[in-house]
């Protein structure tokens, strides 16, 4: 069943006297909707399989003796359907009368009021009184004697059974779409209870969707409960500001605050399901901890200042450093979730006004030790992979990505490919991941030996003659580019059996629509360029299209920043476009990337750094290095929403508006340009990135003319001019497994990254997300815990050559062997002190005695 809709058979039928032709496989409810005939429903949902649970959608079908459920009746040639006969109207009334039998009719205080399918259906099709006289069966709160039997069944989900219409959309979504097992329908009939299984709660990453999908107020979320009637809220179209998937959301707000985010279905990206980070991740905008006044460091302490003072000081300082020491001494670091418009002006400030090429948005990588990213890396990073296309895959290799954490929307598409298209899924990671349950084989490579795994796979493809489009001589030549030089050695090095690698190779070679995707573990490893080379080779050997082989981008707008030229080296075409737009010449000097900027600061070659919407002090994965570098700076300016590890070191701090406080746009990991609208304006004292940059540029160069009305168009032009490189099908790169740092006394490999419910450093200001995880922990495998005699929650001292920390343990089924994980989303603990170039991420663990 390949999902090509073009050749679908057509069926002609008649609904309410109108003849229509639809695709075979369409159900009567959908067919009616296509000609504008509305059939009421509860349990039907376009993205779920029909179950016919609620009987709301009854219609009359000629030759079927009793009313049929239109949501589960497939169209047939010549079918004659009537949707509004007297009998049907009566049947609908009957269904509603039964559904309302035990309903508490508490609409005035129900959060769903105004957007409730039950209200709408009763209004349209119901009767205004019930004939039942017996006592209603209701769940009563024994303490307050009310029917508000609200039970919190998860950190954000409340359930009120009296309102439930047992459509099972919530449990169907949870199991079918999300593949999660923390919600069930217990008991039966009018006693049905929707709940987490005994002793558990619903806390999966997609759990917010069950609230949104509930047609009534049986499930509500904590975030939104009892705060505002939905018709009193204003809505703005927005995009999630955290990961790079670009999930589409609607923000609901009034003149005081944002209230909630809901899905704004976009089938190309999210299929209408959003993860909890997209749903609750707007909350940092509301935080009372926001910076609201500029700060200037005077005599060692930061004191409040006015905007003109701050801007003037920065302009003066930058101009002075530029004049005295040259513009190469000034550098800019931009956060990956700043809008395209901000990024465009940030680039203009540095390249055009300050004349420095030292700008970068790639702040969360370990040092770019072997120079800039390899050609293969950039090519795969720019690849035009479309999330929606993944559902047509028949085979997928996810390499080096904990997909659910890294790319929640891509993860759901992968599950869809598995569910709807029987796709074979392979995952290869240093730890087990959530995708394991749908994987044909879950391959775990030894820490830092991903390259060896890819080398082994390449050998297997060549040895088995499973390659396409090349001859044997070429194949032999490619083999000589690899190290380890044969399959056995490479397999031993990565710790995966030869048989499993051969099996994978033959599945990949046999696939018709193969995808190979790389993610966070790849991006974060210091030899990512070599792994990219290996992936490039694989894509060529297997002859898969450019769009099917990609390294997925990390933050909401890192791809936009890349397309806008926010890195030191500019492709010639882009340089020209920018120079034309700005009416200037661009600097000749070579710029520095993030790690070179920090190194430059340490060696006093760079004097001033402007950090906007980023927190390298906390997130840059070489703690001691970044601390020393920032301390050395003569002049550090930080524009951000909150006080951060970085802002505390700054000479000037500027309160920056959040993404929802200005119009803007992002480019997602597919290269899709998406606009978002401003919701609430920023509070007094806070300024949008574009405004700050404009003020600063005009303060430095008063001659400069701005036309902000064309900013959006200019930005778009530059993005569109980015030439997406094509993979050279003839090209193969040498790939060599890197040497692993000597770590004898430090036996465990530490991985640092995002907690499942956090992303970057802003989500700790989102109360809902903090309910899922509020403090750092160290996650380790059951085997390791057993070996060291560790119980869940024990205090552990984690030590590397560069630092030590005490953290609580969390024993995880997803970990294997000697790899441990610590999230870096919490400012309370400086996790990065444990990693430096020298430690290579290896640590030792000691259990602290309970006191």
């Amino acid at each position, binding site marked *: 069943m390949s999902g090509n809709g073009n050749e679908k058979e057509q069926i002609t039928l008649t609904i309410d006297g109108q003849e229509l032709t639809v695709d075979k496989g369409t159900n009567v409810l959908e067919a009616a909707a296509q000609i504008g005939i509305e059939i009421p429903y509860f349990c039907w949902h376009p993205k779920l399989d029909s179950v016919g649970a609620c009987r709301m959608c009854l219609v009359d079908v000629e030759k079927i003796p009793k009313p049929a459920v239109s949501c589960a009746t497939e169209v047939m040639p010549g079918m004659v359907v009537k949707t509004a006969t007297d009998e049907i109207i009566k049947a609908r009334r009957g269904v509603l009368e039964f559904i309302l039998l035990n309903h508490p009719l508490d609409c005035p205080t129900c959060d769903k009021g105004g957007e409730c399918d039950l209200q709408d259906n009763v209004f349209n099709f119901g009767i205004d009184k019930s004939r039942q006289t017996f006592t209603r069966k209701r769940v009563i709160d024994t303490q307050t004697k009310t029917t508000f039997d609200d039970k919190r069944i998860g950190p954000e989900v409340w359930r009120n059974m009296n309102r439930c219409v047992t459509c099972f959309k919530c449990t169907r979504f949870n199991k079918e779409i999300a593949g999660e*097992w*923390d*919600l*069930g*329908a*217990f*008991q*039966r009939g009018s006693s049905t*209870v929707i709940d*987490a*299984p*005994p*002793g*558990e709660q619903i806390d999966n990453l997609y759990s917010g969707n069950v609230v949104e999908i509930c047609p009534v107020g049986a499930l509500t979320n904590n975030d939104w409960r009892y705060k505002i009637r939905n018709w009193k809220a204003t809505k703005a179209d927005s995009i999630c500001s955290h990961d790079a998937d670009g999930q589409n959301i609607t923000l609901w707000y009034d003149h005081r605050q944002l209230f909630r985010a809901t899905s704004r279905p976009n089938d190309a990206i999210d299929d209408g399901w959003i993860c909890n980070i997209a749903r609750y991740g707007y909350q940092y905008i509301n935080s009372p901890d926001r910076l609201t006044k500029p700060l200037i460091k005077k005599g060692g302490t930061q004191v409040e200042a006015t905007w003109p003072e701050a801007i003037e000081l920065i302009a003066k300082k930058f101009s002075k450093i530029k004049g005295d020491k040259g513009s190469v001494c000034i550098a800019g670091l931009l956060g990956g979730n700043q809008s395209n418009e901000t990024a465009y002006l940030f680039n203009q400030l540095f390249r055009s006004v300050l004349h420095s090429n030292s700008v970068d948005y790639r702040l969360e990588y370990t040092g770019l030790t072997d120079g800039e990213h390899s050609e293969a890396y950039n090519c795969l990073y720019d690849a035009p992979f479309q999330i929606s296309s993944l559902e047509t895959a028949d085979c997928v290799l996810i390499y080096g990505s904990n997909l659910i954490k890294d790319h929640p929307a891509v993860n759901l598409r992968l599950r869809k490919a598995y569910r709807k298209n029987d796709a074979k899924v392979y995952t290869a990671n240093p730890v087990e991941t959530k995708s394991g349950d749908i994987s044909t084989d879950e391959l775990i490579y030894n820490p830092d030996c991903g390259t060896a795994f890819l080398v082994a796979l390449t050998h297997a493809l060549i040895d088995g003659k499973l390659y396409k489009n090349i001859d044997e001589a070429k194949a032999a030549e490619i083999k000589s580019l690899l190290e380890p030089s044969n399959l056995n050695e490479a397999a031993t090095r990565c710790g995966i059996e030869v048989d499993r690698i051969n099996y994978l190779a033959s599945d990949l070679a046999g696939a018709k629509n193969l995808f190979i995707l790389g993610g966070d573990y790849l991006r974060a490893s210091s030899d990512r360029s070599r792994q990219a080379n290996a992936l490039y080779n694989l894509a060529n050997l297997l002859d898969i299209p450019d769009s099917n082989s990609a390294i997925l981008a990390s933050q909401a707008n890192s791809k936009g920043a890349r397309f806008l030229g926010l890195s030191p080296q500019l492709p010639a075409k882009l340089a020209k476009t920018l120079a034309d737009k700005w009416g200037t010449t661009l600097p000749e000097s070579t710029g520095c990337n993030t790690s070179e900027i920090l190194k430059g600061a340490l060696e006093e070659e760079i004097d001033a750094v402007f950090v906007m919407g980023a927190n390298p002090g906390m997130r840059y994965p070489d703690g001691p290095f970044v601390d020393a570098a920032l301390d050395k700076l003569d002049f550090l300016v930080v524009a951000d929403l909150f006080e951060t590890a970085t802002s505390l070191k700054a000479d000037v701090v500027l309160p920056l508006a959040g993404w929802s406080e200005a119009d803007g746009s992002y480019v997602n990991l597919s290269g899709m340009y998406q606009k978002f609208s401003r919701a609430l304006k920023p509070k007094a004292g806070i300024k949008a990135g574009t405004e700050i940059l404009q003020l600063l540029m005009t303060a430095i160069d008063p001659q400069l003319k701005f036309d902000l009305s064309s900013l959006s168009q200019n930005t778009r032009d530059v993005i569109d001019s980015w030439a997406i490189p094509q993979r050279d099908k003839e090209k193969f790169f040498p790939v060599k497994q890197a040497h692993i740092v000597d770590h004898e006394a430090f036996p465990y490999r530490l991985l640092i990254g995002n907690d499942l419910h956090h992303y970057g450093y802003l989500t700790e200001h989102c109360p809902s997300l903090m309910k899922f995880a509020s403090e750092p922990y160290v996650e380790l495998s059951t085997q390791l815990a057993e070996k060291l005699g560790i119980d869940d929650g024990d205090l552990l001292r984690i030590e590397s050559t560069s630092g030590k920390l005490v953290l609580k343990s969390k024993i995880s089924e997803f970990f294997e062997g000697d790899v441990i994980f610590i999230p870096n989303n919490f400012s309370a603990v400086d996790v990065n002190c444990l990693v430096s170039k020298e430690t290579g991420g290896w640590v030792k663990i000691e259990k602290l005695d309970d006191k």
Partner: protein
Amino acid sequence: MILTTTTIDKIKTRMARYPSHRSAILPALTEAYRQVGNLNPAIYKEIAKIIRVPYVEVAEAASFYTMFPKNETGRYLLQVCHNISCSLRGADNMLLYIQEKLGIKLGETTKDNLFTLISVECLGGCSAAPMLQIDDTYYENLTREKIDSLIADLRTNAAHKNQEAPSTATPDSDSTDSKDDV
């Protein structure tokens, strides 16, 4: 571990009969119930591990069926059908009569721990309604007299067993062809 190796073996044998693991949920619950006499979340978790299905699916299935008691019951669990055919033929009266006779309310257990009374949906014995089920046996065409003699029999039965050997509170497990396999 609550389930004994014998039960686990039985579950595994029955599991082998089905193409999908999920199909083994009910047989597994049945075996567990036969061993323990009632079911609880700890048992669901063990079953989930043995037959490799999600815990929630086992818990859902168990909760759906009233024939799996979730709390300790007396030695005899009286499951009286209250569905339509039985109701039409006097199930309500039978229920009232049993409550009166045993001095307990629906859902309760007698002080001597012998009888627990619950009412359940149709057991497929409509042709001989009203009816009730104890362990794997149906008692049909109920009348007050039949109930009197049934309860008397069960009392003597229990007394006998008590003399012979300490009660195991284990329902008979030989008649495997019960309705659970349907």
